[in-house]
């Protein structure tokens, strides 16, 4: 016993090194879902505060671009206003009894929240976006994030009182269900870590025959993203003779370099939808 204690004392540095290494490897090997158990709420709060201070500086210099974006978005929304559309002129056509409007009651499925981006990386292999909106302001885990121009950004993975973390599409574990706008054939959007502009669309059946320039949108299979949102456009098709599936490079619709605001989408029926999903977590 005395010898063991002596041995440990002699090699105290080595043992403390070993313990620290094991500690960090354990932290590393657990996936992002147990993130908060190691970091706890405080670290998110600290990094969120510092990020916010920093972004208040960078935000000032991009005010002009942000303004233009918001103005463009306002125009797009204004064009969708109901008052822009008029009904059929029923006086000219006799006997038109078909109602243009669906009279069935509608229930709201998706609800949108705006949030300011205070931290954003795109240079690493696992990129996250920090936003200044948390559980106090209605953010929940697994909510989807989309950019002001309507293309998808990521999924909320971590929430505390005033800040939340979004797993960006530029993350090696990110996976979102997507389909072609043209023929609705679905696959999944991932990222290979190479270029922040290019995403990878996997598991597309070889019968799809996609062309360069095809639009990729979110599929209705996703439980967190609304369907028909812009993902990107196909830039090249990778032929793999050994596989039954195609892999495609997709130019991302989102510009991850200058995100200022994102919208968070809450699916109010997500729980119900997930209950009947056979394969759990099709999209993370």
């Amino acid at each position: 016993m005395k010898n063991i204690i002596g041995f440990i004392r002699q090699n105290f540095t080595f043992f403390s090194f070993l313990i620290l290494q094991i500690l960090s490897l354990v932290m590393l090997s657990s996936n992002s879902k147990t993130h908060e158990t190691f970091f706890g709420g405080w670290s998110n709060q600290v990094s969120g505060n510092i990020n916010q201070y920093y972004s208040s500086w960078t935000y000032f210099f991009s005010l002009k671009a942000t303004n233009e974006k918001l103005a463009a978005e306002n125009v797009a929304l204004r064009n969708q206003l109901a008052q822009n559309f008029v009904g059929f002129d029923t006086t000219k056509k006799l006997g038109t009894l078909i109602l243009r409007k669906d009279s069935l009651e509608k229930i709201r499925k998706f609800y949108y929240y705006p949030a300011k981006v205070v931290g954003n990386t795109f240079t690493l292999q696992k990129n996250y976006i920090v936003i200044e909106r948390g559980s106090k302001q209605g953010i929940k885990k697994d909510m989807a994030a989309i950019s002001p121009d309507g293309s998808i950004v990521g999924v909320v993975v971590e929430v505390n009182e005033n800040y939340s973390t979004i797993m960006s599409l530029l993350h090696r574990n990110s996976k979102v269900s997507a389909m072609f706008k043209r023929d609705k054939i679905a696959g999944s959007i991932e990222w290979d870590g190479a270029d922040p502009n290019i995403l990878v669309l996997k598991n597309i059946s070889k019968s799809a025959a996609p062309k360069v320039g095809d639009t990729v949108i979110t599929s209705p299979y996703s439980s967190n993203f609304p369907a028909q949102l812009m993902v990107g456009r196909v830039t090249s098709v990778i032929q793999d003779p050994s596989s039954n599936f195609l892999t495609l490079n997709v130019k991302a619709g989102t510009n991850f370099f200058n995100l200022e605001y994102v919208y968070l989408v809450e699916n109010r029926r997500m729980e119900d939808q997930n209950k009947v999903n056979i394969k759990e977590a099709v999209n993370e």
Partner: protein
Amino acid sequence: MNNLLKNTARFVLFLLVQIVILNEVPPIHQFITPYIYFLFLLWLPFGTSRISTTLLGFIFGYSLDIFTKTPGLHAAACGLMGYLRPIILNLLLSQEASEEVSKEPSIATMGWGPYAFYAFSLTFIHHFYLVLLEWLQFGNFGYFIGKVFFTSIISLLLIFSVELIMNRRKLKR
């Protein structure tokens, strides 16, 4: 300036430079990630004990991990770096020189050749271990070799440009 004060300031400064500037640089290629934050560990005074460089490395790496949201990745690499630092210093310097607390590794105190070897070997160790840990999670062998090689080159370029700009010889006197 007091040693402790100076190193505390460096701790914060190098973290900020890495988070606010280098992590925001648009990537040129997948293999190139500019890393310079670990220069803090290279610049610790000669006499810093092995256990404290190991601990400091761990804490320093973990602080960066909080911002990059990779728990343990940089902490492991910096811990290893802090642990191996005294071995390389002992190889390069005489016994009494490597125990002097008032001085720190620099071109002025060590000379060009030894300092270059010191910086290169520790940078290489850091990147080798860091990218190895990344490789275990995703990627392939080509990614591993390419990233270690190119990231080390970029880091060394950054380190030596910092050495030339800062000119710590003048600060010493």
